[in-house]
């Protein structure tokens, strides 16, 4: 995969398939590292499945509960000298508190670090395809964090407006674009005053 936003889409789709009601997508950008965390409250995985999900042969030989998303994310992270950490609590073990968390660390100054790509487009795709699932997106970066919480959208819109209606999606797109843009303008202003 040539862009991290596509990796994120793939992992988040796994979360949706695992029956998650809430999928959290958290990006933390520091000086020269980027951490991507995708956490869900889906059905989770047993330790046995968990061990095998980053093995591409295991996943393609069975009925493909999980796709190639995790092996590819692991590859992308490790190519930059980073890593992927996976934790999961299966629903069978703890019916109250279950789900999976994937954390990938990238060294962004490594030459093989893929570009971020269009994360807003990834979110739009997720919301459009899964209007019943809630998504919490938070991108911490220099400047103001970018955030979107579909639970708050639902509170405001009420339960009879589907999140994948055209107007809502259009609003979300604009809302994200504005947050990224404001941040960029602020940063440019700061750079100007510094020089």
């Amino acid at each position, binding site marked *: 995969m*040539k862009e991290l936003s596509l990796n994120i889409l793939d992992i988040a789709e796994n979360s949706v398939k695992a029956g998650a009601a809430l999928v959290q997508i958290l990006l933390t950008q520091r000086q020269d590292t980027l951490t991507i965390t995708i956490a869900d409250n889906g059905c989770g995985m047993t330790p046995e499945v968990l061990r095998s999900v980053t093995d591409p042969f295991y996943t393609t030989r069975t009925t493909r509960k999980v796709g190639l998303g995790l092996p590819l994310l692991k590859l992308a992270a490790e*190519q930059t000298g980073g890593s992927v950490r996976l934790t999961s609590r299966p629903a069978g073990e703890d019916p109250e508190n279950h789900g999976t968390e994937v954390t990938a660390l990238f060294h962004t100054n*490594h*030459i*093989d*670090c*893929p*570009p971020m790509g269009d994360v807003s487009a990834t979110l739009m795709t997720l919301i459009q395809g899964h209007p019943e699932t809630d998504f919490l997106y938070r991108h911490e970066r220099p400047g103001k964090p970018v955030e979107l919480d579909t639970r708050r959208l639902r509170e405001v819109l009420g339960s009879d407006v589907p999140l994948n209606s055209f107007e809502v999606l259009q609003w979300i797109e604009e809302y994200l674009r504005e947050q990224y843009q404001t941040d960029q303008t602020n940063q440019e202003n700061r750079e100007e005053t510094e020089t």
Partner: protein
Amino acid sequence: MTINQMAEALGLRVLTAPEGERECTGVYIGDLLSWVMGRAQCGDVWITIMSNINVAAVASLADVACVLLAEGVVPEEDVIRTAEQKGINLLCAQQPAYELAVRLHELGL
């Protein structure tokens, strides 16, 4: 053979060719940038499907004659702009890397 001659002979799309008269002397194929960085030779036609901004950096560092994007890959506008500014020839083609390499071999590379 120069970049311009190669583009003409293979029917390549030239995205930018600030050094179009540069001579190509070899071919290198690879997508893992850190690997290419240490192995592509000065004057090579570097065939790849990677198209992010780091490709321009590696092309510059390895001093390849051009970057030839295979399989219909088209980079973002800012990558083309950077290539132009840094004097990197950037071309693209619909064919996969192997087919391009075969054609280049037929042309004497």
